[in-house]
């Protein structure tokens, strides 16, 4: 288990990258830190690894306070975006490095190196040099090297960013399976929302050194808690409104003279609150006639995208993107009505 309590990290003197930062990763859990560059996710990872010295706060790994302990005594496995393999050593020697440092020798070491090679499907490649391997193979060596020492905690810093798109998907599954098989507590840093959602038990969205939201991938995807999370997780559309009534888990809204109903609204909202309403392009539908939860729009553009068709529409609330299955009624530029699914309207207070 990893526990970070009230951490403050200053990169440049006096300017904190992280402040009052708390994070817990439970035993065997895979938590990803998701956010744009500069949000502090890598700094968090580097502080946990011991390469950044925090100004204050505490980091414990498996109950041991490691805040002031040098990186080599932290018992943490680290995987880098650049793989960071030792180019002068063979694959087997790379994997053996951590065991060697721990005084594991002879047949025991050979056995564990062989096991690790098997674990990442690289049997028979132990004698190669890193430069003779493909990017995916190199990253598997890096993984094997990090887990062979059976660390208390595994840290992965954008491990897939140097791979091509297809390989990224394969490797992501492999990493997840490996992590589950070993049951190792893992902190995973990425800027790729799809990757984070696919691989994690829990996703922590970060922005400007703070945690915006922490939750299961489903929660993060469906119920963003802040405008930042909604934007980062790809909610294409939003408009401003005012709460008129809250009852039975339903929120009634008023926007540009029209009323809407939203079903999921986790926030404590009261009538009169100014809110943002977010919805994904799939959460709306074009229709020929008005209905409940609809607003009049002007279709500006229709783009065919294979299984779906994307429309750009103009309303009194602004421009929206709408994505509908390809087999639905076709709308050409001109007036129409946009139906909003009350289940998929995310309401959050304007701050």
């Amino acid at each position, binding site marked *: 288990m990893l526990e970070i309590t009230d951490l403050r990290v200053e990169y440049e003197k006096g300017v904190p990258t992280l402040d009052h930062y708390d994070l817990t990763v439970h035993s065997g859990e895979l938590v990803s830190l998701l956010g744009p560059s500069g949000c502090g996710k890598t700094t968090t990872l580097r502080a946990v690894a011991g390469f950044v010295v925090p100004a204050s706060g505490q980091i414990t790994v498996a109950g041991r306070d490691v805040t002031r302990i040098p990186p*080599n005594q932290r018992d943490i496995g680290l995987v880098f975006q650049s793989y960071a393999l030792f180019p002068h050593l063979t694959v087997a020697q790379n994997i053996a490095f951590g065991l060697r440092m721990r005084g594991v020798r002879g047949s025991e070491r050979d056995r564990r190196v062989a096991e690790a090679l098997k674990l990442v499907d690289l049997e028979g490649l132990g004698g190669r040099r890193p430069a003779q391997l493909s990017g995916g193979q190199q990253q598997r060596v890096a993984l094997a090297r990090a887990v062979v020492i059976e660390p208390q905690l595994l840290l992965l810093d954008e491990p897939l960013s140097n791979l091509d798109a297809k390989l990224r998907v394969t490797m992501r599954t492999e990493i997840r399976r490996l992590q589950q098989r070993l049951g190792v507590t893992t902190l995973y840093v990425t800027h790729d929302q799809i990757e984070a959602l696919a691989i994690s038990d829990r996703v922590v969205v970060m922005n400007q050194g703070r945690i915006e939201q922490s939750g299961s991938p489903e929660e993060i995807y469906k119920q963003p808690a802040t405008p930042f999370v909604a934007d980062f997780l790809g909610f294409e559309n939003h408009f401003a409104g005012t709460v008129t009534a809250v009852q039975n888990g339903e929120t009634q809204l008023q926007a540009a003279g029209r009323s809407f109903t939203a079903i999921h609204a986790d926030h404590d909202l009261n009538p009169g609150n100014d809110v943002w309403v977010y919805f994904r392009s799939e959460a709306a539908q074009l229709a020929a006639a008005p209905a409940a939860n609809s607003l009049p729009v002007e279709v500006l553009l229709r783009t065919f995208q294979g299984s779906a068709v994307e429309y750009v529409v103009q309303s009194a609330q602004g421009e929206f993107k709408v994505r509908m299955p390809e087999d639905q009624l076709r709308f050409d530029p001109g007036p129409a009505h946009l139906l909003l699914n009350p289940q998929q309207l995310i309401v959050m207070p304007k701050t």
Partner: protein
Amino acid sequence: MRRTITILVLPALLFIFIFFVLPLLFLLAQSVQDPETGRLTLAGYGDFFQRETSQIIYVRTLRLGLTITIIDIVLAYPASYFLARMPARRRTLAMSLVILPLMTNPVARTYAWLIILGRTGLINNVLLGLGLIDQPARLIFTEGAIILGLAQLFLPLMILSLVSAMENIPEDIEQAARSLGANSLTTFLRVIVPLSADGLVLGATLVFTGSITAYVTPVILGGNRMLMLSTLLRQRALMAFDEQGATVVAVVMIATALAVNLIVRLFRPKPAAQR
């Protein structure tokens, strides 16, 4: 394409041939020619390797070269690591400071050593003033003086070679070693040193060959009391007027430097192919 390249390189090749290769060949020819009869003879070399003074000087030259190289490696490694890990902007400035000694006039630079090491130099004055010695100690015209002067002269070369090799070692690799349980020293020995071996070999070759062929420093700091090959050459040529003897020394010196380069090239560690 090929022909154009040949034409482009031709002037430089010709220049080098006429003003470098040709004179060397004359030198070589003269060293195996009897000065009186003009016949082919190896007597000059026999004389060189049999005479005790030239043996002593030859061994001394090699020993000093080795000592200077080792001193520079020991001094340069930590400094180069520090420089290679500096932010790029500050490193540029620091590197120009490292190179500065190479750009000062060699004679002026070496005379500065006299001010420090001479009979009435800084060190002797201080030691005398403190009453630690009664008479000025001999610091100049010693092996120590030559070592000091040459180690200082060639330290920048070693640092330059090492820094350029270390710059290419990503910090990630070091951190990987640290996270796997290596302390700073182990990381240095097992990761930094092997990955900068190319720079080490280059620097050591430059310093060693530079040291065994250096002239100005041994002349001023070693004088006629502490001869090296280069100063022996001067003595033979300008004081003893023994032209053949001088050419023999010259050929031995050049051959030794070439041999060292060749041996190092043959036995240097295979560069780890990166990426």
